[in-house]
């Protein structure tokens, strides 16, 4: 087996608690490459879990000898010492770890907790000069960071971690002579250190000493083939080190049964961690360059975090129902009896895991009597209407028992549990909307109150993909609630103080995305396409980013997402360059990420495999959740936010307030309906469509922080069960609008629309224009209006909707149907503009 693949499998094994396998696999790797830092960390973590404390300590120390800044090793060492009863030693290690990684909340928690055991508890932790220097360095303020490191070195001149940080800062701020001196000095004292070796090598290469430089790099890469130290250093430089480690074969230890399904899909990877320091052209928002303000800002963030963590101590009183719904007949038809049995076993195991977290799991096959008997519901064929009916009965049954269904997880793609086909309420190419909303009934369809997710399977008859996703879902709970406090944070390596956010957006939509991201606190990383495209995208940018926003174009048939240039680019540059492909995710570890995609068809997965769907590939790479839209989606190109952009903002806000992803999606839709109704007095067709087609793929119980158990989760600010849903707002009716389209609109509304489009979406100004009068109705809010209702609010007048359409070729096989819709009053005033994503 390839060495890199074995390393990846070992990591999955650790997440799934297969410690003996991890030990054997890591030993196999280390016997060939003793410097493999990742393997060394894995074996140490596994030994720690099996109680082999002294061996674990040995391996952690081996890591620290080469990489004294290793967060995992330092934390692990602290845990091991604590378990040996050496609390003071453990605190010392944690203090070092916290100074090195001051943005890690789990470290802060652990340190406070350990200190309290020595009666040295205190409310908060102040930032030392070293910790502050680290934070400043992460923001690119290298000069200020160096001054703080110098302060620390005055009293402790030999501190290795501080000297390493100083060397990196000197190098990054181009004080190359000093950087070289310090690196040489460090290497003379500690020849195994990796960081100064890499920095010195790069310095030598830059000044033409290639023979020595390349040999040094060779020594660094063979000492750390997984690139744990070198990869973050090289991020943002043009240097790309070879990943030769993947080419070696090693003997593979036997794989335990629980791992079998998962490892089939584990790809080879170098497993390099996400970079702590982003590339040079990263956009980081900073309110001030003044050092004092910056330091205060960091302290504020940490204080807020501290308060937030304290708030989480409130536990929910009762465990809720976690409903898992699928079809036995369809699974059997697709995967055969053997495949079904494997899946059934895995689903039962999932129920056990959820049960251990305090949930009340219920596994229901809609076409089998067993799970339904308790509900006094008859099984039925897994068709949309029948499934919706069964769900309605189940929700009501629990309600009658005084229980709440906390989360609903539909298992399978559309051929297992079909998507509900709703009429398309707006004017575009989609014949209908694919939705999961009707499966979680509310008072009306625009008042989604329940948390729903779908765990999809692939298109082939091989169940491996679904088995992997089930393993990954269970892995999200690995180690949680086992009484070891912060250990899951160690296993998952890096958990910063606040969610680290990634935004990848079409250049023309940058203003809208920036408006959203400005409200997002914490570490943000924004890329636009162009100039970034699939050719320059780095998978490592995605790693460690818990919230990822993709505001890009999508199409029904292409697996890619696309950016869009603005007028500053030459005419022969592609209008829609490819921004992201499933292949680009192959090297990314997206463990636990929550992904929000605004792309058209971003979560259209029917009949698709992971190779043909970015959403499915995100899940395969470990993302906990992908939220997106199943058909043409709409948004705004600039503030005020609307459509997908506004939903994304509300979703984010709900997530950081502590809601799970499923709850956050429901809440964001509800807020969206309220805001649009307030702005307009009704929901137009685009608003309706966005609410109905927004679905969640993955675990609806996932959340941003390290996943808490049900018993340990904070009380929700959003208590869906005690609130009354607002009435259904007035709705735009496309049937009535179409019927009324014969009446001529005022002549003077089109010129301002053209002018507006030329400014805001120039490529659409020449599109085919269609004018519809605004016609409202008030159906029952079930998305089933046929245009013949006689509700008093069903009336025409006041404004017009002008739609511009244009098909733009992306390739010989695929095109993008662009739609821009302008709402304009009869005086020619522009009321609203949306564009398709």
């Amino acid at each position, binding site marked *: 087996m390839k060495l890199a693949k074995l390393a990846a499998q070992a990591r999955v094994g650790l997440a799934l608690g297969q410690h003996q396998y991890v030990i054997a696999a890591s030993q196999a790797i280390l016997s*060939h*490459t003793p*410097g493999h830092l990742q393997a060394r960390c894995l074996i140490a973590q596994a030994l720690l879990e099996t109680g082999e404390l002294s061996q674990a300590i040995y391996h952690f120390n081996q890591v620290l000898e080469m990489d004294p800044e290793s967060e995992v090793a330092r934390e692990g060492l602290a845990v091991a010492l604590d378990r040996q009863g050496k609390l003071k030693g453990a605190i010392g290690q944690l203090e070092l770890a916290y100074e090195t990684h001051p943005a890690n909340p789990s470290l802060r928690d652990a340190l406070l907790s350990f200190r309290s055991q020595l009666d040295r508890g205190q409310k908060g932790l102040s930032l030392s000069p070293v910790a502050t220097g680290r934070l400043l360095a992460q923001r690119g303020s290298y000069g200020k960071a160096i001054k703080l490191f110098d302060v620390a070195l005055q009293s402790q001149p030999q501190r290795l971690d501080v000297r390493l940080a100083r060397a990196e800062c000197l190098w990054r701020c181009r004080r*190359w*002579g000093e950087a070289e001196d310090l690196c040489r000095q460090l290497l003379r004292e500690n020849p195994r250190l990796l960081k100064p070796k890499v920095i010195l090598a790069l310095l030598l*290469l*830059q*000044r*033409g*000493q*290639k*023979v*020595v*430089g*390349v*040999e040094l*790099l*060779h*020594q660094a*890469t*063979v000492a750390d083939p997984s690139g744990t130290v070198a990869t973050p250093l090289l991020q943002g*430089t*043009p*240097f*790309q*080190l*070879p990943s*030769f*480690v993947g*080419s*070696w074969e090693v003997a593979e230890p036997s794989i335990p049964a629980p791992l079998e399904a998962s490892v089939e899909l584990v790809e080879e990877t170098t497993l390099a961690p996400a970079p702590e320091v982003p590339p040079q052209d990263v956009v980081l928002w900073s309110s001030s360059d003044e050092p004092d303000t910056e330091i205060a800002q960091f302290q504020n963030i940490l204080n807020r975090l501290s308060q937030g963590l304290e708030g989480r101590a409130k536990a929910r009183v009762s465990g809720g129902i976690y409903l898992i719904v699928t079809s036995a007949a369809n699974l059997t038809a697709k995967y055969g009896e053997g495949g079904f049995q494997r899946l059934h076993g895995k689903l039962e195991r999932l129920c056990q895991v959820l049960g251990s977290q305090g949930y009340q799991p219920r596994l229901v096959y809609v076409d089998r009597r067993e799970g339904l008997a308790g509900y006094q519901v008859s099984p039925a064929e897994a068709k949309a209407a029948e499934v919706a009916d069964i769900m309605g009965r189940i929700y009501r049954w629990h309600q009658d028992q005084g229980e709440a269904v906390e989360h609903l997880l539909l298992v399978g793609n559309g051929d297992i549990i079909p998507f509900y086909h709703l009429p398309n309420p707006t004017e575009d190419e989609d014949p209908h909307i694919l939705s999961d909303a009707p499966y979680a009934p509310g008072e009306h369809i625009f008042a989604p109150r329940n948390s729903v997710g779908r765990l999809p399977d692939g298109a082939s008859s091989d169940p491996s993909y679904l088995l992997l996703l089930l393993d990954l879902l269970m892995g999200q709970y690995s180690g949680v609630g086992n009484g070891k406090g912060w250990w899951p944070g160690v296993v998952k390596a890096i958990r910063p103080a606040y969610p680290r956010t990634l935004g990848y957006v079409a250049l023309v939509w940058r203003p809208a995305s920036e408006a959203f991201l400005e409200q997002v606190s914490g570490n943000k990383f924004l890329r636009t396409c162009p100039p970034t495209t*699939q*050719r*320059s995208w780095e998978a490592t940018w995605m790693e460690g980013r818990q919230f990822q926003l993709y505001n890009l174009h999508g199409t029904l048939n292409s697996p890619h997402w696309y950016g869009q240039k603005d007028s500053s680019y030459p005419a022969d540059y592609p209008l829609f360059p490819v921004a992201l492909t499933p292949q680009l995710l192959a090297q990314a570890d997206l463990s636990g990420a929550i992904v929000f995609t605004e792309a058209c068809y971003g979560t259209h997965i029917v009949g698709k495999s992971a190779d043909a769907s970015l959403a499915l590939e995100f899940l395969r790479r470990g993302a906990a959740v992908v939220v997106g839209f199943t058909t043409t989606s709409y948004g705004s190109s600039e503030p005020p936010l609307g459509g997908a952009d506004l939903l994304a903002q509300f979703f984010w806000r709900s997530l950081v307030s502590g809601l799970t992803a499923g709850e956050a999606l429901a809440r964001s839709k509800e807020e969206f309906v309220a805001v649009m109704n307030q702005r307009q007095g009704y929901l137009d067709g685009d608003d309706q469509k966005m609410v109905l087609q927004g679905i969640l793929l993955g675990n609806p119980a996932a959340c941003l922080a390290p996943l808490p158990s049900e018993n340990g989760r904070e009380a929700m600010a959003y208590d869906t069960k005690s609130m009354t849903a607002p009435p259904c707002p007035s709705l735009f009716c496309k049937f009535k609008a179409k019927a009324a389209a014969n009446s001529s609109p005022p002549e003077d509304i089109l010129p301002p629309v053209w002018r507006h489009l030329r400014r805001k979406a120039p490529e659409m100004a020449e599109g085919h224009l269609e004018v519809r009068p605004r016609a409202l109705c008030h159906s029952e809010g079930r998305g089933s209006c046929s245009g013949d209702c006689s509700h008093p609010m069903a009336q025409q007048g006041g404004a017009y909707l002008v739609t511009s359409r244009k098909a733009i070729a992306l390739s010989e096989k695929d095109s993008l149907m662009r739609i821009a819709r302008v709402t304009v009053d009869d005086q020619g005033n522009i009321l609203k503009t949306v564009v398709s994503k």
Partner: protein
Amino acid sequence: MSLSDFPRPSGDTGIGFHYFPDAEHYDRSHLLRWLPELKEMGASWLALFSPLDRPVPDAFLGGLLAEAIEPIIRLTPQPIQPIASGRLRELLRYYAAGGVHYVYFYSRPNMASQWPMTDWCQPDLVERFTDLLVPCLELAADVGLYPLLSPLQPGGDYWDTVFLEATLQGLRQKGKGYLFSRLGVAITNFAYNRPLEWGEGGNRRWQESLPYATPPGHQDQRGFYLFDWYDEVVKGQLGFSLPLLTVANGLRVGEVGDKDFPLVDEDTQEQRLLEMARLMREGRLPPYLFNHAFWLLASDGEEAESAWYKEDGTQIAAVVGLKGLAKGPRATLLAKAIPPPTPKSLYHYLLLPSEQGAQWATAAASYVECFQISGGFRVEEAMNAEIVTILGSRLGVDIKAERALRAAGCKVERLEVGDPKEARKRLKEMVRAGQRFLTL
């Protein structure tokens, strides 16, 4: 020995191929099958795989040589390991007696996959490889063959241009400089899906390209014009060119290594292969590049997809195209014989920036005095030294001067300091440490 003194086949067209990548196709029937095809395509060179224990039959070699096709023998044990000298001597004698001239040992030593894992992970890779290679080169030279340095993977896990530079340095440092008079370099210059002109002009033109780093908008050696880069390295080290013999090149349908360029389709493949042939035939390639060796004439194994002649009897379009090109020897642009480098009159020279010259000179005084070094501001003067240490950044003594010194056969190192004050400090440290050179 000048380039023109190295053996070439009669009527050399410069066109060539790599034959089957195994030793199973060397009997008479194969010779009869492929010789006419090779001649019809105008081939003068053929790279042949030779296991250590199964030499290419004399009859096969004789058949090629009779038709003026020059074989290049490939002895490439895997993984890389020492070759027993007794057996090797016997084998090399056999080839020399059979009329073979060129032979090379080991393939792509700059790739981890070619080494036992534990060997790759040790420091000083190039030095250790050179230790393995030198006995092979010496044996080959002893029996009258012309050995070639091993072909490297362009780029590679250990950057190829640096690997080559370090190998040449190593040979000289081990006192094996005499080998250079019979030495060539085997190269693999696949075009991948990049335009043929990618990298043309070498590092002289693409100065921003560094090992493992090709900034956007710049080009590197990983393309057809790899030979420009290698020749620059060779000249930088030796002061003259060595023959570069291609042992595999071309481009394959479906190649998509560089995402900035479209995938290679059949039309592109045909057009570029024929253009490569024309460049060679029309004398538009440098004389130190001896030949093409299009990968791959034919194969019935794993590499069959790359073959020009397919197993089902079909051929890639370039076969017909090549047969249709004008026949006749390659237009010659043979280089004038480059005289061997003149002995240097100085051992070590400290080259100082002329701006603020007095301050630089003062800063260097203790170092110059300690090591008894010649110093000054003139590049022409520095060219007379075996070793030149340049003081200061490229703003003071620019890269052109540095390259001129290398081209003149000087070993050059640069003490990168920003100003005379920093120079004084660094040089004092070197004096204290008794360190005359930075890296040499």
